[in-house]
């Protein structure tokens, strides 16, 4: 244990995803030794991102206004919604330039081990978006791993009665990984070759 504020910093860093106690310590001491101007810039970026960036009221993607850039763009096809786990997946799919519809960001995937159930994801919001029947295709682009598959199966079953077309990205994506790790060509191809999900 270190003294007061140093330990506080280590504790706070340790709560970040992917940062273990050892890394938290390393980052903390890096910050201690860094140029004050650099640290101020980091602190400013952290505060600013919380002040200026919020989540799109419609799709849950990061946004600077009430609606994100994509939801606010009238040229995007409102009849197709692509469901992803995280905002970073939106970025990955946008890079392919393969998709002209809109998104829905769930905020994760079903994972009982981590205590994440359907009620912790933005599923209610998705169902509300589908209620008026204007959406004709739902593309389930959750990660190609077990939790992503399970979430896709769950969603497909939920909306089955609504009679819209439900598709899943074609296989060929690196299995077990994150969507964001797939390169543009592979992801683009998976989009083109998406198949009907039968549950």
């Amino acid at each position: 244990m270190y003294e007061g504020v140093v330990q506080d910093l280590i504790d706070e860093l340790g709560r970040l995803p992917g940062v273990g106690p050892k890394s938290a310590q390393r980052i903390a001491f890096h910050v201690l030794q860094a140029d004050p101007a650099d640290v101020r810039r980091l602190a400013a970026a952290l505060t600013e991102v919380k002040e200026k960036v919020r989540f799109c009221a419609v799709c849950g993607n990061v946004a600077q206004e009430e609606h994100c850039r994509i939801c606010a763009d009238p040229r995007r096809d409102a009849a197709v919604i692509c469901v992803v786990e995280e905002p970073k997946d939106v970025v990955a799919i946008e890079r392919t330039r393969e998709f002209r519809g809109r998104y829905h960001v769930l905020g994760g995937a079903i994972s009982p081990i981590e205590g994440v159930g359907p009620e912790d994801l933005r599923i209610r919001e998705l169902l509300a978006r589908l209620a008026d029947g204007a959406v004709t295709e739902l593309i389930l682009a959750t990660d190609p791993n077990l939790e992503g598959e399970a979430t896709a199966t769950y969603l497909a079953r939920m909306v089955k009665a609504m009679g819209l077309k439900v598709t899943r990205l074609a296989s060929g994506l690196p299995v077990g990984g994150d969507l964001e790790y797939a390169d543009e060509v592979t992801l683009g191809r998976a989009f083109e070759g998406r198949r009907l999900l039968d549950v």
Partner: protein
Amino acid sequence: MHLTHLSLADFRSYPRAEVSLGPGVVAFTGPNGQGKTNLVEAVGYLAALGSHRVSGDAPLVRSGAERAYVRGAVQGGGRSTLLEVEINPGRANRARINRGAPVRPRELLGSLRTVLFAPEDLTLVKGDPGDRRRFLDELLVARAPRLAGVRQDYERVLKQRNALLRTVAMARRAARGAKPDLSTLDVWDAHLARAGAELTARRLELVAALRPLVDAAYARIAPGGGEASLEYRGSVGAALPAEGSEPAELEAVLAAALAESRPQEVERGVTLVGPHRDELLLGLGGLPAKGYASHGESWSLALALRLASYDLLRADDGQGLGDPVLILDDVFAELDARRRDRLAELVADGEQVLVTAAVPEDVPAALSGARFEVADGAVRPSAVGS
């Protein structure tokens, strides 16, 4: 295939060790606790990425050191491959092939194939069902490294489903009679049935292939000892389709069994059917081996299971890499003179057979070949070879 060189750094009792090996029989002898098993354990680790003695990696790192290295040069199929693994307990291990860029250790699987028999294998006969399931699953992966994924997928689904069942069971207890939302359980059932069916189908296939080989191996080690039998008993009971059934059929059976056992599962908060609850029943002369077989019989049956594995891997050498390396740790001391000689005959033609024994005289004369003396942390070619 055979190992031409083994290098260790901070592995078990060895700060460093360099051993050059040839094909044929290689015997390591020396007093107790000098590091004979440690050597062959390292060879097994390179092949299976796990120890046959411990489940975690921490004991493999020499006490006081931070990480261990195992490197082996393998000759097979007309080429030589250098395999390296860095063992970092508690963190990700790293591996390299032919001094290339670091790869995931899984990439090593298949380059070196071994079959290891050790005193611990007595648990194959006397131990829990889990020991026999592990035997089957490890052999599956040794035959087809791709199946490591099938095994992992099943374990992951099972973990998720058990986590869900646990919270459901807890919620029910907290609020008596409350009806928890089971819609996600249906999803996990579907995934468990699919992954479980794939694993079960592979195991059934394997048991069918092993059965005649185990019986034959047992008959050769212990002639007149009765028939050795293997039977795969599914946790779904009599509903388990016959060996050779399609995964789709198994999936339907497993899904139905999950539906049937759901009330108990929700009550107890754990998955009660699936390959993690299946049994491999071993029999000798019409009686169950566990609980009936004598010590010597159990030992011979365990050995027969490993020799059958060896025969199986030898037969399906799709890549033309040659026989797996056969490792016999401390096996001769337990056998009477006649069984020793029979075993020696059985394995003498293997491409490479690594043998350990505390007493040099325990290694049958029929097993001529290189001999090493292991003592005081050093591995030296033996002056008194045969």
